[in-house]
């Protein structure tokens, strides 16, 4: 944490190397987090870019408060996603969890790992979870944060995160099992 604090301080002085390092360290994780949250890779690209541009504009006002720098970025990403989803719903777009065909895989499949599920399937399934469950899934599996880091980002205890992790995985299992796609038995809950 001490090293990160020093790095962030330099970044706040607009040290190009420090800013670039923070960018490099967090870029992929933020991208995956957003993709899993909204299920659209193209939109996720725009949002990811905007997260870092917003962070750059506000970095002078960033205060650690004992939390890792990434938790601030995830907060920015979260807000970006909320704004995006608001705009999408205002436009009257059909939400992703309606009965839409699963999007075609991205043309650059060569860059992706051989997987059992497509990211879009997981994103659609995740929309059936509670907001907190979605957040844990995104942070643990897309961004590969530890329980401790998730707890810091979500301002919850580690015990609460573990409980959420369990319930989220159990719910996903039901949704993603064969024949259960888009017909989840898990009740839709909107409160965290």
């Amino acid at each position, binding site marked *: 944490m001490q090293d990160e*604090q*020093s790095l962030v*301080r330099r970044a*706040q*002085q*607009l*040290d*190009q190397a420090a*800013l*670039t390092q923070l*960018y*490099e360290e967090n*870029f*992929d994780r933020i*991208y*995956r987090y957003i*993709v*899993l949250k909204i299920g659209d*890779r193209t939109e996720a*690209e725009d949002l*990811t*870019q905007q997260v*870092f*541009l917003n962070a*750059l504009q506000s970095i002078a006002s960033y205060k650690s408060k004992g939390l890792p720098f990434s938790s601030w970025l995830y907060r920015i990403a979260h807000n970006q996603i909320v704004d995006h989803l608001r705009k999408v719903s205002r436009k009257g777009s059909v939400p992703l969890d309606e009965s839409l065909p699963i999007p075609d895989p*991205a043309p*650059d499949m*060569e*860059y*992706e*790992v*051989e*997987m*059992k*599920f*497509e*990211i879009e*399937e*997981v994103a659609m399934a995740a929309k059936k979870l509670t907001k907190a469950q979605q957040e844990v*899934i995104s942070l643990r*599996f*897309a961004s*590969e944060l530890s*329980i401790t880091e998730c707890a810091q980002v979500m301002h919850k205890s580690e*015990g609460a995160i*573990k*409980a959420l*992790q*369990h319930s989220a*995985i*159990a719910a*996903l*299992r039901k949704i*993603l099992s064969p024949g259960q796609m888009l017909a989840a038995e898990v009740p839709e809950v909107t409160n965290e």
Partner: protein
Amino acid sequence: MNNRKDKKELFDILDEALDRVLKGEDINSVLAGYPQHADELEPLLRTAVDTRNAASIKPRPEFRQRAALEFQKAIQQMPVKAGPAAEKHPRGIFGWGAAWSAAFAVVLVVLLSGTGVVAAASQAMPDNPLYSVKLATESMQLVFTPSEEGKAELISKFNDRRVAEVVNMAEKGMATEISVLNARMTDNMNRMSGLTEGAVNTIMDEQDSMTMATFNAGNAESVEQNTALKAPVMTTAAAPEETYPPQTPVPAATRTPQATTTTSPASTQSPAPAGTQHVPVVTPTITVELPEPTTTTIIEPPPGASLDRNSQNMHDFKANGDDKWEKLKGHLSEKQIKNLRALLAAYQNASDEMKPSILQTIKIIVQGYGLSYSNSSDIFSLLEAYGIPLDQILN
């Protein structure tokens, strides 16, 4: 109570098992460690692994590179932190304002000249601490080169260095650094095109001035006076094998504006975050001697040149201006092809992740120098030989 305790235990076990699986341990061997919970754990672990695998996507390399470039541009456009009177202007070296960067660069290079550091810095790559000294030296060289053609020559030389740095960064897998270099090269290209256009115009204008003055004056004395007009030409240094400047220190300083050292008005600045350093506003006392112009050449008429406007000699004399432009074009064309070859070789050897970044550099080299500088068929042939579609480069 028992249930809650059991649940908590299950949550802890799941997390523990999950950590091991996500780190690569085989699910069956992990489950063997929890025989009482194996039936419940197994489907959860498999779902978790499948979810993690699905989410392990990477951003498209093209997007990653574009985003990195935009981010670096945004950094450059951030206002410099200074006193309350500071106006917004682009950041300079070390994050200072451009004016202070230039002054500091002069101090730094003058102090370091003769110590071998400046010479050592000339070899530095972007991941080397001395790289900023290298850039500072280049800035100084530009400042002290008065002619447009000289500046264009210098900038094209700096671009050669940037290409070598791109190749080096590609070998090290440092895509972000390449994005920064690409941004610098784009700026250089824009500056160079303005300068070379100016250089061509200068050559042509001065050539015209000389011929007209010669016609009007109609005597040898006028010819002598008028050829003293310095019609500058590009120093056509051989396409260098080395891409670094000669190992000479920057000229020592002899004349300067006097200056005093002042500190920033601390009382009007908001306190810096703990642990940061205050950067005082310092006007260094330096002396600067403008070096002799390096690219000035007097065009003399051929011996025995007739002043008759219809004479063959005068025709040849005027044609010299056209020759100079052709030499300028030829010089840049050689550089373009040389740089393109180096980049194409790097592209061929690069990992898939690095290829888009290098492709962007290739684009800059092809478009920046302009196809008109070189035999475009050479460029097309080279690209084709390396399997790079033209439309990827020209669009």
